[in-house]
């Protein structure tokens, strides 16, 4: 029964309702109601709507805790007993995996494994793609076996994180206040925008945006932006410190809300920004573009990992949850916020043709596009900034990363802020 309805779904048939669950195996259908899984992660995907839907579809309870990325890293590394499921980014996985607090997942138990986009399996979106710099997800996505400590560069069948959500980030601009096309990262330091630029004050991500700018200015070409040497860190910081002293920046932001307010109030006309922040500015009626740039995007990806202490019924429930996660309902929910799902084709079943065309294929909206919470995000005739999935994810220049010289970089970042 389950297989049949799933097949119908995959054929793109009208089996909407039937496909809404994978159906829990009958044997433990009763026990599972007592299971509670504790998930923690960053705010982007820790949504109460997801927990409610899990209760409805799978019957067990999912407790969500949302934290900022520093706290997430800390918790995953130091408090293995405090969670069952960790929803973390791939660069965090690189830091946390060596602690042994997570267990590898058997991909043969993941029903939609074959449909997960190539980025998370062999690193390639299409066979011709080149792999971007930084901590590309597939480089930390597999280990050699259930107890594997080291990452391997092939699809070993044992995954560290099951990818859930990812996106390509770029600069946000106020087209009405700039009044001309912007097409390079170097514009962030263009004196034309003196006192009207901003960058985020989160060192691990900010340094990558800086590197994109430095390369775009033609000052330096990094062998690997995701793993700079001390000299490269110094050089990058020197360029930005000089710009800061010249009054280039209006402010730095640390929280999502700050970035929205800076942009919406017109204090800043160009800055590093996250996709939902653009949406939030637009929903205030202020024009704002997530500007695609020639040098490409800075990308990030997250996934869910299982705590090493998880076993038995709880682990079965966790696998069931993962399979449900990739089955499309969550994917559709996330994609309607502007993120991408690891298995786009299942998400399609939970999106209207108009939504799929707008968010994934980069087509003109045929009707009003609304967020999952009902706010209008785009009107008929508008297209998504950056275009289709292939255009956006195909133009990734680097992935969020953690460097070998991370501590040195953090100290230099503090100097930059104090300069």
């Amino acid at each position, binding site marked *: 029964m389950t297989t049949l309805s799933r097949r119908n779904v995959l054929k793109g048939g009208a089996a909407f309702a039937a496909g809404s669950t994978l159906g829990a195996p009958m044997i433990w259908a009763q026990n599972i109601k007592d299971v509670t899984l504790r998930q923690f992660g960053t705010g982007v995907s820790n949504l109460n709507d997801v927990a409610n839907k899990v209760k409805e579809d799978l019957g067990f309870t999912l407790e969500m805790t949302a934290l900022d990325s520093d706290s997430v890293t800390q918790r995953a590394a130091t408090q293995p007993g405090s969670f069952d499921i960790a929803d973390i980014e791939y660069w965090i996985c690189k830091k946390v995996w060596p602690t042994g607090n997570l267990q590898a997942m058997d991909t043969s138990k993941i029903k939609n494994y074959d449909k997960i986009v190539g980025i998370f399996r062999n690193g390639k979106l299409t066979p011709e793609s080149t792999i971007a710099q930084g901590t590309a997800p597939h480089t930390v996505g597999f280990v050699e076996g259930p107890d594997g400590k080291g990452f391997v560069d092939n699809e070993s069948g044992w995954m560290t994180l099951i990818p859930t959500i990812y996106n390509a980030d770029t600069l946000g601009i106020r087209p009405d206040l700039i009044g001309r096309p912007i097409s390079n990262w170097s514009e962030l330091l263009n004196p034309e925008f003196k006192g009207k630029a901003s960058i985020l004050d989160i*060192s691990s991500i900010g340094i990558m945006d800086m590197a994109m700018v430095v390369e775009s200015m033609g000052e330096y070409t990094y062998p690997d932006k995701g793993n700079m040497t001390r000299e490269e860190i110094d050089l990058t910081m020197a360029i930005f410190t000089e710009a800061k002293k010249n009054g280039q920046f209006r*402010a730095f932001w640390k929280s999502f809300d700050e970035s929205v307010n800076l942009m919406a109030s017109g204090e800043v006309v160009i800055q590093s920004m996250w996709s939902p922040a653009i949406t939030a500015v637009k929903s205030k009626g202020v024009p704002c573009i997530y500007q695609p740039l020639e040098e490409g995007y800075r990308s990030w990806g997250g996934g869910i990992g299982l705590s090493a202490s998880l076993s038995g019924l709880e682990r079965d429930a966790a696998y069931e949850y993962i399979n449900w996660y990739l089955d499309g309902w969550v994917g559709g929910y996330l994609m309607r916020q502007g993120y991408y799902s690891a298995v786009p084709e299942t998400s399609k079943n939970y999106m209207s043709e108009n939504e799929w065309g707008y968010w994934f294929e980069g087509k003109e909206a045929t009707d009003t596009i609304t967020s999952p919470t009902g706010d209008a995000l785009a009107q008929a005739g508008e297209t998504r900034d950056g275009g289709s999935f292939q255009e956006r994810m195909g133009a990734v220049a680097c992935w969020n990363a953690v460097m070998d010289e991370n501590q040195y970089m953090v100290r230099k970042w503090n100097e930059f802020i*104090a300069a």
Partner: protein
Amino acid sequence: MALPIMAVLVFFLVLPIAMIVVVSFWQATEFSIIPAFDFENYQFLFGSNVTYRVFLNTFKYALITWAFTLGIGFTVAYFLAFHVRSLTWQVVLFLLCTIPFWTSNIIRMISWIPFLGRNGIANSTLISWGVIDAPLDWLLFSDFAVILAFVHLYTLFMVVPIFNTMMRIDKSLIEAARDAGATGAQILWNVIIPLTKPGMMIGTIFVVTLVMGDFITVRFMSGSQSANVGRLISNDIALLAYPSASATAVVLLLTVLIVIGILLRFVDIRKEL
């Protein structure tokens, strides 16, 4: 009688501070905190010129804020104590001063942001009056904004103790000075100010410790562009570097204690308490 108070103080004040001192000698990697006895945190702290710059900046904020809050606080207290004659009105006006404290500290601070912004009320008003042609950028996300917020937040901490000491001044002393032929300015300088010193000192201690320990006002009002010691500590904590944060906290604590020690040499506030 003193025992319960002692126990509370030891448990909630002495113990946590002792713990901070202990941790400041520990070591930390990205994931673990290693108990040790090592001066590395302090070596890094004193070896980095960022530390000196940030401490200097913290002192700058404290000094300027102190000067403004003292000036405004003294004036307000003087007005309340010597110009308002009836006790009822003194109480009413004094309560009026405390009304802003019914809202949260952070809200009072953040409400300056839309006011001072590039397209904020201050700039648009000045432009419509023809005072300026272009918006003043330095109103927000600048040292000006930081100090403005500090002065706004902490002036009351000056008003209260100064008003309190002024109310205790024996009015016959002022009459005697006047009978002896002193001018208003002479009375202020030779009678009122010396007698108000303990109140000023208590206010000073409040303001200096609050400003030196702050991190959130500086972060919001400078748009994260300036740093003070509090922000160094909060950055360290965010990056899980608890030992290094503790070391900075210990140095800050000692600095503030030294400042207060020096202040107390000038005035004996015990007399007032």
